[in-house]
């Protein structure tokens, strides 16, 4: 687990579609590297054969009968969107 550099942070930020100011990148490089250093403590654990724990009670997904239970609330929900038209969410043109 090696520490990160500037290009790593830029790559991760793009994967997360997260704008990061150029001037803040050195600080993120340091912060993230320190966090990853701390996390290296986990290397000391022998977890061979241990089942990963996803739910503290090891519960499994509850299933329900496949029936419509929610009403169509499109108008109410879309009222909170930055831009809509004809019941659709608008974004900048994707295909020329």
């Amino acid at each position, binding site marked *: 687990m090696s520490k990160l550099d500037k290009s790593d942070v830029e790559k991760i930020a793009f994967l997360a579609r997260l704008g990061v100011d150029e001037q803040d990148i050195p600080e993120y490089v340091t912060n993230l590297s320190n966090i990853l250093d701390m996390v290296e403590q986990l290397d000391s654990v022998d*977890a061979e054969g241990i089942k990963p724990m996803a739910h503290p009670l090891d519960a499994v997904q509850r299933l329900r009968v496949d029936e419509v239970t929610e009403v169509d609330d499109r108008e109410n929900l879309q009222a909170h969107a930055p831009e809509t038209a004809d019941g659709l969410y608008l*974004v900048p043109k994707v295909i020329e």
Partner: protein
Amino acid sequence: MMYNKTIAELSAGLKAGDFSSVELTQTYLERINTLDEQLNSFITVTPERALEQAKEADVQRAAGHAGLLNGIPLAQKDIFCTKGVKTSCGSKMLDPFISPYDATTIMKFNDSGAVMLGKTNMDEFAMGSSNETSWYGPVKNPWNLDAVPGGSSGGSAAAVAARLTPAATGTDTGGSIRQPASFCGITGLKPTYGRVSRYGMIAFASSLDQAGPMTRTAEDAALMLNVMAGLDKRDSTSVDEAVPDYTAHLNDGIEGLKIGLPKEFFSEGLDDAVAKVIESAIKEYEKMGAVIKEISLPTSKLAVPTYYIIAPSECSSNLSRMDGVRYGYRCDDPKDLNDLYIRSRGEGFGPETKRRILVGTYALSEGFYDAYYVKAQKTRRLISNDFHQAFDEVDVIMGPAAPSTAFNIGELTDDPITMYLSDIYTIAVNLAGLPGMSIPAGFAKNMPVGLQLIGQHFAESKLLNVAHQFQKQTDWHLKLPESFK
């Protein structure tokens, strides 16, 4: 003084007709109006809605239909979606967001006849331990206005401590109810994972998040949990487990109670003055007939690194929904779709949220998933196993809720790792999904210290009983900060 009463006392007063819910609600709204300027504990105050709800509560009571919390004013952490009210989660990203629906917890409080005074300040998306990551500015600690109230439920903790509300809700992913309860000298309960519905509670780390009450007393926490707990078909992780009356066992005796003290919670890193307060609280329990036993939770020393993989990973996934398309903040003049995502998220999120999204994105990225996330999930099971072994020998586990009292505003903002360590005693409890409480146990350097109680899964009644018995013997929970009298 009406404002200095507990929920239990206020309910008795309402029932006896000593005052109406409208009068009570006006009292608290006035206190918020005159005193919150010093604290910044509320993001939104909802006076019209509160008075309407209070009026309705008085009508319902007169008609003989008083619900469990009829007429009781409460503050809700701004992480709970509240229909028609801004639900910001402490972020610029959701500053424009007026929720179109109610969280299950809000619906339950509404049905119980409770009155909502407003929405409390919090760390952005509940990521923080000092309430300094809020886009709406830091909250001040009512015991010392230079100090932080803790976080992420810092607004709720400060508001309850300053008597701006009789009680509030909080959420706890790694200590966000217990650490601020400790810093502000109030009672906070994080229930068992899955005990309270997460529906409509804006998600941070879904395998850890849990909502709970922040109150003056254990009795009040029991009254709140009676309303909050239960299975919710809308939250697939909520648990189908009967909900008892949490007040039923408050007065049980605790002679012979076996208390485990994990030696790892009393080692380096713990402030000496805090340790002294905790030790004298434990002595109080011995006087009441409890038996003390030293135990060990060997893997708990890895709780912080384990958490700082699991929580950021889940947050990076959960917060991907904040994309500037369906609700919330959108940047000006996006030139294409990527630009819209990148700038909306870049401008909408603050530095700590970005840090965690970046860590989580890295941990989940191709080639690293097994080394980080899966390894952390395995370590999580080892941490959980330690607790289960300990509970073969003891009934409850006790220790400090935090390694220090409240630090000063700005003291740790440049040092994220030290900030993360302020949750060192609370995080393991979330990883294991156990219920935990912090109750006022005394003062160190004039600042409150919280005693943490940890129980087995669904042992909330036991914890509340053990906490209530302590509060019958001590008066730390009755202390009120001088400038808010």
